[in-house]
């Protein structure tokens, strides 16, 4: 069986699995799964661009996904009247001061290079003073902003633009952040880079969680607008009701499914576009150069390739893709929940997708996204079904049975870990291995 035939069979297999869920658990669930699979596939694509193209080991995708979600808020949330007047200037001033402090700090640091204690001392003083100035500017401004209608708002709000624009903005925001992060940290060795990106992404989440004036913090930003129709609107429309009955269903059920199908269509379009662009890039001279650098960095450098710049390019591009996916996720949720960004789900799980799917291969990353997300969600019902089967002989309230049923939810952690270890050991090239050109 040739590899491409196998690939098609595997994707077809995914479709069958999703159909299976549709019949077994309901099409609503199946379509929700599909949408999340597509988003996961795009995130995996982003990580694969960094790892597969350039061998960059970054475990910071959580931060860039969150920044994408933030774009959703900034672009499409309703503007809060009075908030900007109350503290907008102060916040802007404070942000400007922070950026200036950072720039000044870097400048002082570089100018005093190799002067030991003086370097640390002076840079420290500059940073401290800058920090205090920013706080002085921002503190009262933040307090004022958060006082504007705290129950419903208490933050700066957004621009009230269509949320679909946030997908692009999310990509740009993530790209910008990635540029800064990459500039300072890409020189690190692989495991140090991994830890640094993990730390940086945690810091980003922290800021998003606690800077209420920007994101409402743990109160979340809900009710973000949609790019697709609302179910209630569909159900209310008589044309839709007629159509629903004509296909043998009712308006409520049909509305839910139609909305999800609309999302699926939009998301698939983005996935296919990103995939297409990635594949073109991979086969282009640029892509060949990237892989040459990945496979033998010293040789590439000796040939005059600017390795640092290339790495930065790839890092930014991959993060942008992750940001787009993050914005799409916030769109699907209709809300921005900073506390939902956990490293397990947004960083490590994506890595599992890339590894299992086939690192270095875009189609592999996509397949990995589908497969891993599917089993991540389905592991609980499947586990419950399996445990029910195994314990069907036991009495209804045996302690063991109850305990097992309770723990079914954690089976997915175990299984995901075991699958990752098994794949790494026995099938390290993944489901769709990289094609050596």
């Amino acid at each position, binding site marked *: 069986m040739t590899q491409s035939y196998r690939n098609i069979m595997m994707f077809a297999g995914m479709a069958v699995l999703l159909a299976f869920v549709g019949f077994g658990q309901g099409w609503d669930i199946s379509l929700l799964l599909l949408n999340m699979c597509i988003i996961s596939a795009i995130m995996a694509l982003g990580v694969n661009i960094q790892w597969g193209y350039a061998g960059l080991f970054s475990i910071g995708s959580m931060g860039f996904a969150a920044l994408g979600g933030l774009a959703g808020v900034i672009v499409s949330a309703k503007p809060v009247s009075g908030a900007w007047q109350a503290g907008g200037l102060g916040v802007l001033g404070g942000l400007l001061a922070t950026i200036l402090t950072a720039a000044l700090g870097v400048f002082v640091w570089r100018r005093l290079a190799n002067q030991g204690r003086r370097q640390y001392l002076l840079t420290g003083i500059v940073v401290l003073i800058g920090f205090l100035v920013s706080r002085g500017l921002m503190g009262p401004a933040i307090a004022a902003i958060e006082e504007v209608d705290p129950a419903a708002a208490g933050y700066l709000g957004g621009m009230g633009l269509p949320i679909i624009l946030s997908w692009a903005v999310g990509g740009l925001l993530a790209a910008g952040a990635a540029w800064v992060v990459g500039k300072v940290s890409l020189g690190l060795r*692989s495991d140090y880079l991994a*830890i640094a990106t993990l730390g940086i992404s*945690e*810091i980003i989440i922290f800021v998003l969680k606690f800077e209420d004036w920007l994101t409402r913090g743990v109160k979340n930003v809900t009710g973000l607008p949609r790019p697709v129709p609302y179910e209630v609107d569909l159900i209310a429309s008589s044309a839709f009701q007629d159509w629903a009955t004509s296909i043998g269903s009712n308006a409520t059920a049909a509305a839910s499914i139609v909305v999800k199908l609309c999302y699926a269509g939009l998301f698939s379009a983005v996935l296919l576009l990103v995939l297409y662009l990635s594949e073109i890039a991979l086969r282009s001279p640029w892509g060949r150069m990237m892989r040459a650098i990945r496979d033998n960095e010293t040789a590439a450098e000796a040939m005059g390739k600017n390795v640092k710049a290339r790495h930065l390019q790839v890092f930014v591009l991959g993060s942008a893709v992750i940001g787009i996916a993050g914005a799409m996720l916030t769109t699907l949720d209709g809300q921005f929940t900073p506390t939902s960004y956990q*490293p*397990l789900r947004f960083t490590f799980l994506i890595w599992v997708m890339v590894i299992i799917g086939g690192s270095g291969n875009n189609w592999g990353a996509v397949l990995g996204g589908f497969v891993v997300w599917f089993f991540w969600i389905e592991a609980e019902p499947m586990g419950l079904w399996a445990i029910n089967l195994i314990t069907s002989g036991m009495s209804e309230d045996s302690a063991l049975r109850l305990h097992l049923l309770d723990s079914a939810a*954690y089976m997915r952690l175990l299984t*995901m*870990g075991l699958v*990752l270890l098994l794949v790494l050991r026995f099938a390290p090239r993944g489901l769709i291995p990289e094609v050596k050109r």
Partner: protein
Amino acid sequence: MADILNALVIIANFIIVPGLAYGSQLALGALGVTLVFGVLRFSNIAHGETMAAGAMFTMLVTWWLQSMEMGFGPLPTALLALPFGTAAAMALCLATDKAVYGYYRRVKASPAIYIIVSVGVMFVYNGLIRFVVGPQDRVITDGQRFIMKARAFKKATGLNEGLAIKTSQAVSVGCAVLAVASLFWFLNRTRTGKSMRAYSDNEDLALLSGINPERVVLITWLITAALATLAGTLYGLDKSFRPFVYMQLLLPIFAAAIVGGFGSPLGAIAGGFVIAFSELTITFAYKRVLTYLLPDSMAPTTLVQLLSTDYKIAVSFAILVIVLLIKPTGMFGQRSS
């Protein structure tokens, strides 16, 4: 005079005592991470979960002891259970090495692969722990809760501010001191310990000298498991046992190890306290302290807090990132490649 003493007591109560306890716990965790990095040459992302596993084993034995009405007097019963918990954690680590890491040592995999593998191990440990004890909060402390109560202190000294010292805090510091002293004695005064340092320093030369690598690996895992169990149990005694908390501790522990110099045991200890005290001092509200120290006219009206307490753990992340970017070798590290 009383004002200065009061200010000192506040600092002792809210910064020094908790800092020493938390620093001890971080130091023990960082020691485990730094040992694995120094000898086995990879960053073990699963170390937080190893601590959780060790704490879980200890907790299970503690419950068993408590159910048999066995206690340890004023000290927590968990201390009695520690040896058993440690043994179980050692078995877990050795089994994992045999099943997982050993293969990658044989094929000389790259550091990135090791990290991804340890992520897989982290998933498995995480799932196993929740499977066995569930995700909820458990209190495992018993025995006398306080060595010194705030009220008693105030009565004895007549000061306004009280100093409370929990048993678990004193136990943390005491155990850490014992553990560190034993570890250093082992590394510097025994033949096996020196062979581990040699292997960590120069692997080829160590092999040439006839040092058995498998033995070094075995002992490293035994020590790491012991340190992880101790750190996890002490932290669980001090706060409470919640499985997911240990994943959050992973970054502060790595921060401590890296700040001190990845691969240097002395660095891990220093780093643990640097991180702990940084977290506390940077997020502390100095209002009351300043009120005592400054004349009334200059008493502060705001909290005088550099960063809000929410950001406590973010401080360690920030220190980690800054150290990695500025001086990745940390305070005591030498290895640069």
